[in-house]
């Protein structure tokens, strides 16, 4: 039983670490909570069996790292738009082309203010 919880806890905590470094860091909270619960369960069983708790400590360590990375990211990382220079250039070019196209269109029916 202890082994099962340790394996599940490790899987969940590794998943939490992976998610926390990806842009999806908000989602890392779910596996982190799961890992924490499995870690506690494993801790309880290993206390019963009075066996080594080294791996369980690793689960908690990984979970804490994942939680701190995702919390840090959600608080300090403001969302910023990346490089839009190329888009702005396309906008400008498009407007110039559009004016040319519009000159060729039949705009007689338009209501000019």
């Amino acid at each position: 039983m202890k082994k099962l919880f340790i394996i599940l806890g490790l899987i969940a905590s590794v998943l939490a670490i992976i998610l926390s470094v990806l842009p999806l860091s908000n989602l890392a909270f779910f596996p982190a909570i799961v890992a924490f619960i499995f870690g506690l369960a494993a801790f309880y069983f290993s206390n019963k069996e009075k066996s080594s708790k080294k791996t369980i400590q690793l689960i908690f360590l990984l979970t804490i790292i994942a939680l701190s990375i995702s919390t840090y990211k959600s608080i300090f990382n403001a969302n910023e738009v990346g490089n839009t220079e190329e888009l702005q250039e396309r906008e400008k070019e498009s407007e110039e082309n559009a004016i040319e196209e519009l000159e060729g269109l039949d705009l007689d029916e338009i209501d000019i203010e």
Partner: protein
Amino acid sequence: MQKYIFILLLFFSSFGIAQNNAFKAGENLTFTASYNMSGVLTELAQVNMVTSEVKTSKATLLRLKCTAATYNKWDSFFKIRDLYESYVSPTTIKPYLYKRDIFEGGYSKLVQYKYSHSNGTVESIITKKKKTGGTYDQKKNLKISSNTKDIVSTIYFLRTLDLKSFKSGTYKTLPVLFDNKPTDVILTYLGKETISTGIGSKMCYKLSISIKNSDVLKGNNDNILWLTADENKIPVYATFKVAVGNGELRIKSATGLKN
């Protein structure tokens, strides 16, 4: 004489309905698009809606420009740089030229519609990238009804509707041309609601949007648009549900408003 008076009255009344009191050139609306992943809203992209004046030798048109750009944390995974434009009449929001230039995760496409309202046709040009390199054009002439618009001008046209006179349950069908297919967008007025937005707490008109004979938008009343219940009718909040999940669009800032 009576006939002329009648025609004049008709002309002015139609002018009154079509009058655009909601926006002018120089308006800039910024939105944040979020996607709902297992109950957690993740901010994906910034959407801008900007209006400006465009002068040709014959007329002055309004350029309605919508851009979408993913936040930098997503750029290395799925970069989006989309540009949607519509050149419309400043009063009636009748479109004359529509351009859609999209770049989504390596895929790019250019769509252009040139409207000829007197003939009731649209000349569509779609430019796509070839797999072997280079581009190719697809030209087509499409028949449209007199009030068919593109997606951008439809969004702005919604704002010129006289929503004050709408009763709960009133619906309006708007013909929209998208991907060379004429589709009917059905707009249902659901009532008024006060919601808190990025530009303060606002009393809003709540509108449900659905597409006739299409299952792009899922759910019943899950695709809702909130427009402020004032003269500006700013779109402040929108929720949508598609096959791959649901998301929302929230306003961040609004400048250059008409009223």
